[in-house]
């Protein structure tokens, strides 16, 4: 009986140590940072990727994404994404800036959390990640004068004018005859 209790105690202790040793590894990545803003023009729509990564663990993880800043120009298809173990997932972030959007820039802040099961200690530690960057806005440039497109149109207009002129001259000559 004493041996059974001892064995049970040893097993529980081992389980507790194993539970405490569970590690949490994951993250959030983006090409855009505070020093590398996303550049857009008023009226433009652009989609970029937010990278969710779940490495160094043997189980998949569910990420909950919350837009903390910039929700007036940023939309996301879902707020919850599952990433398999040892995998990455690119989540599309779609930006639309209305023509009459008054600001020259907009800060974007995304908070990403992943649920943590009870780890058996007094205090369970969860993890969260944030990604922040700015969207810099400008007015779309108009096509400069004398551009290729305008030049092409001018050539067509000139050719048509020549044809019309020729027809008029021939018509006048025929009338004289």
């Amino acid at each position: 009986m004493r041996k059974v209790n001892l064995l049970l105690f040893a097993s529980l202790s081992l389980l507790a140590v194993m539970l405490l040793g569970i590690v949490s590894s994951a993250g959030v990545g983006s090409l855009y940072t505070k020093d590398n803003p996303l550049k857009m023009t008023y009226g433009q729509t652009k989609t970029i990727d937010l990278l969710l990564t779940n490495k160094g663990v043997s189980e998949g993880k569910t990420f909950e994404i919350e837009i903390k800043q910039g929700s007036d120009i940023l939309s996301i298809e879902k707020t919850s994404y599952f990433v398999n173990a040892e995998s990455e997932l690119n989540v599309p972030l779609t930006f639309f800036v209305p023509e009459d959007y008054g600001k020259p820039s907009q800060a974007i802040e995304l908070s990403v959390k992943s649920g943590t099961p009870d780890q058996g200690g007094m205090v369970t530690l969860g993890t969260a990640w944030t990604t922040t960057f700015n969207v810099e806005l400008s007015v779309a440039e108009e096509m400069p004068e004398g551009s290729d497109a305008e030049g092409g149109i001018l050539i067509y207009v000139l050719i048509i004018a020549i044809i019309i002129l020729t027809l008029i001259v021939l018509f006048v000559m025929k009338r004289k005859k």
Partner: protein
Amino acid sequence: MRNRGVYIVFAVILLLSMTVISAGFWDIFTGKASSADQNVSVSVVGANAVIITVPPASGTPNEGGSRTIIFNVNVTDPDGSSDINTTSVRYEITKAAQTTKTGSCPFQNNISSTTSNFTCTTVFWYYEASDAWNIRVEAKDVGNGTLMNGTNNLTYGSLNAFLMSPSSITWPGVATGGTNQQANNDPTLINNTGNYVSNISITGIDLNGETIQSEMIPANNFRAGSVFNLECTATPLVNGSSVVIAGSSSNPGNISAGGGAGQANIYYCIPSVPLVSSQIYSTNQGGSWTVSYT
């Protein structure tokens, strides 16, 4: 008289047409070689140096590992692609305070009679700095031999990622009114598996009694710090609010290199145990504390 009028009209049309239509079109009738044919027929090694076109490149870190980034460059020689020295194309990628990357760019194919395509492959590690790096590609031709450069930027993204262990904190049996009670399974070891540069923050949550749930140990009874044995005077936590742990750093670096690179430790203490009932207190009811890079 009538014929003279017709001739004048045609002469005017011909004159106007010559100003707007490419000379190449009329070459069909004249038999004169076009400018394009002249380029193809060059067989003498050229006097002209090469022109290098480097597009912008980008990549995002791979958590705890490396990311291969590939970019294609075009090398143009007005003397013809056969005059390009195809083994001379090399890249150099630099950023202040970072290790420079160099390598060769093997020939892929000719994309026109004067331009060849080369593929450059480089490897970025998870801990290397984010944002703009400078790409410089060099190449030369056979005839001229002058080494020419082309430049652009490579944008390396930011990765906020870490590996944390253990995922819970425990204290030995503490007595009400006790002082400076240090956790008995710390530190929490935080390995930076990305390249994010910041402090470490913790959002504390009040601990509730597991038997009498209405009783609690408020989060502000706990302190956390990055230096062992100084945690009892370190940063106090706040219930439900993210608090930056003073002196902490995400410390990005090559963890494999040892010496603490890419690592941080957090220690915990209850400086003054409140006068509460004797029972187990935990985060089971209120929810876990949250560790993050700020």
